[in-house]
């Protein structure tokens, strides 16, 4: 017995071009919601085929004329996607604003680098260890702070991100400001060696993303996902339904952190060299931008968002210094014209219309798209 079927809502196409594009996305999403199982599998297969042929030089010459396309696909694009899926668990599903997500990326990366270089441990062992350490630090960060809400939680997580970076900077054991060099590459899989050619790393990245997507979708559809949705939409009401809210928020932090740690491990395997400045605050902000731009809470949207955020600045390298300015301008425009993100879930749209749903108080005090400022004083 599920929530039956959602009635189709009337979405009238609006005038500006962004809305027209957005409307197209909405139609796609509506089709998807009513699509049959075999249609869905066709889309899955198409997505995998698309991912496999994406590094083709013919595509690359347009997508990335300036830099090696496959390298761009591994970092930033693939890494951003992995990070965005992880942050989406925290921000999009549980509705907790985390501004220090890069910390888990750093922990995953440093684990691989440190244990690989100092102790010569197997790459995969260090990746798993990195994931575990990230989860533990997620719990350590969450346990005292998850009693805070909204803006306060955001500030504390921001601080955590900085603490991890600055600690790395000041710890000589892990190389201090010089970082760690000669990080070992992954051992060969199926005879495929991980050396300078970016292709094997790309396929490794695709595999990691696929695993994380499946994991994330399964979670979303489980009891855990329902609990997160309830917490995101109204935390007190969730507690009154018998949802152990604190435990589930902690779980969201831990799972988000694990995915962040996996991204860090995958990244370090290719990077050869990591240092504290590989993990600046701006990366947390960028990943958050990817999640929000794509449509917080909706996995395809988040992936598209991360792809665009990773790819656009690379594509427009011609603009040299100005590209970040242009990039910022595009982001501002996007959020002004389509504040719910490129491809939001229908549920998310309904939440935003209410002025609730995630981002803690930041979401609650801002009027949703197409509404007057709906400040319910009584709440």
């Amino acid at each position, binding site marked *: *017995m*599920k*929530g*039956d*079927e*959602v*009635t189709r*809502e009337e979405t009238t196409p609006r005038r500006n071009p962004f809305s027209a594009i957005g409307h197209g996305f909405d139609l796609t999403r509506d089709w998807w919601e009513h699509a049959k199982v075999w249609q869905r599998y066709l889309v899955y297969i198409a997505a995998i085929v698309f991912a496999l042929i994406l590094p083709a030089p013919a595509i690359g010459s347009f997508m990335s004329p300036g830099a090696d396309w496959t390298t761009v696909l591994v970092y930033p694009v693939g890494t951003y996607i992995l990070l965005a899926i992880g942050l989406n668990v925290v921000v999009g599903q549980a509705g907790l604003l985390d501004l220090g997500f890069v910390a888990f990326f750093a922990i995953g990366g440093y684990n691989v680098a440190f244990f690989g270089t100092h102790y010569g441990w197997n790459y995969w062992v260090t990746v798993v260890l990195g994931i575990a350490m990230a989860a533990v630090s997620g719990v350590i960060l969450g346990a005292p702070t998850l009693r805070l809400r909204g803006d306060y939680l955001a500030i504390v997580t921001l601080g955590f991100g900085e603490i991890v970076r600055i600690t790395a900077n000041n710890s000589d054991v892990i190389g201090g400001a010089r970082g760690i060099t000669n990080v070992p590459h992954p051992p060969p899989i199926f005879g495929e060696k991980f050396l300078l050619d970016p292709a094997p790393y790309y396929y490794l990245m695709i595999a990691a993303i696929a695993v994380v997507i499946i994991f994330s979708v399964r979670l979303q559809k489980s*009891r855990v996902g*329902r*609990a997160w*949705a*309830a917490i995101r*939409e*109204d935390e*007190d*009401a*969730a*507690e*009154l*339904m*018998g*949802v*152990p*809210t*604190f435990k589930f928020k902690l779980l969201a932090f831990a799972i988000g952190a694990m995915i962040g740690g996996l991204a860090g491990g995958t990244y370090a395997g290719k990077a050869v060299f990591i240092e504290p400045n590989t993990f600046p605050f701006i990366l947390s902000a960028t990943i958050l931008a990817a999640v929000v731009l794509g449509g917080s809470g909706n996995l395809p949207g988040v992936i598209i968002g991360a792809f665009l955020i990773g790819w656009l600045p690379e594509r427009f390298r011609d603009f040299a210094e100005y590209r970040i300015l242009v990039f910022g301008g595009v982001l501002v425009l996007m959020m002004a014209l389509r504040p719910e993100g490129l491809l939001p879930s229908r*549920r*998310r749209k*309904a*939440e935003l*219309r*209410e002025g*609730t*749903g995630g981002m803690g108080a930041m979401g609650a005090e801002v009027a949703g798209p197409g509404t007057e400022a709906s400040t*319910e004083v*009584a*709440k």
Partner: protein
Amino acid sequence: MLLEVKDINVHYGKIAALKGISLEVNEGEIVSLIGANGAGKTTTLKTISGLRPLTSGKILFNGEDISKMPGHKRVILGIGQAPEGRGVFPGMTVQENLLMGAYTRKDDLSKDLAEVYELFPRLAERKSQFGGTMSGGEQQMIAIGRALMTKPKVVLLDEPSMGLAPMLIAQIFTIIKEINSRGTTVLLVEQNAQQALKLSDRAYVLETGRVVKSAPGRELLDDPSVREAYLGGH
């Protein structure tokens, strides 16, 4: 005695919201808390359901001390609440909202779901509509229905008439009566004192965090000081 609140104090920071409130709810009763804004009615309910910690005092449910128990465990014991301002999940459909109420339950829900739809035919018509797109009255119905889905022994209703048209208020009160007659104990917080007192077996009058009067509902309706303060009459 089903629910017993013994001399509880609750603070928001340094400000005392409740200064030694005691009340009792027997099985099968409808009990009301009435009082002006800021009297501590909502805080009392939130403390009973576990959303607010108490500084001192005790809450007993079926004789068991639940003062330190987290809110989500009190739901399993049988305390259901329709929170202030309704607290409907806007991104879930009506049906999903109701099923959220049964989150902790593993038994068969279809009977209870049918009963909620029977109590609120309006919700049955709009099963698949998003909670956030429903009107105020309908959201109140969701909130009450969702609380009933937790299969509570006592249901705490926080201002169910707030912001509703008079017709709807009458309807909601009829339904509260009906819920009670089907065996659920009701603890009701209301500003709409007239209607609440008519319905209640007993009522408590709260003023700035204290109980100033308690008596059967009918009696309070005729009490001159209560009439003057809360019923706008003489």
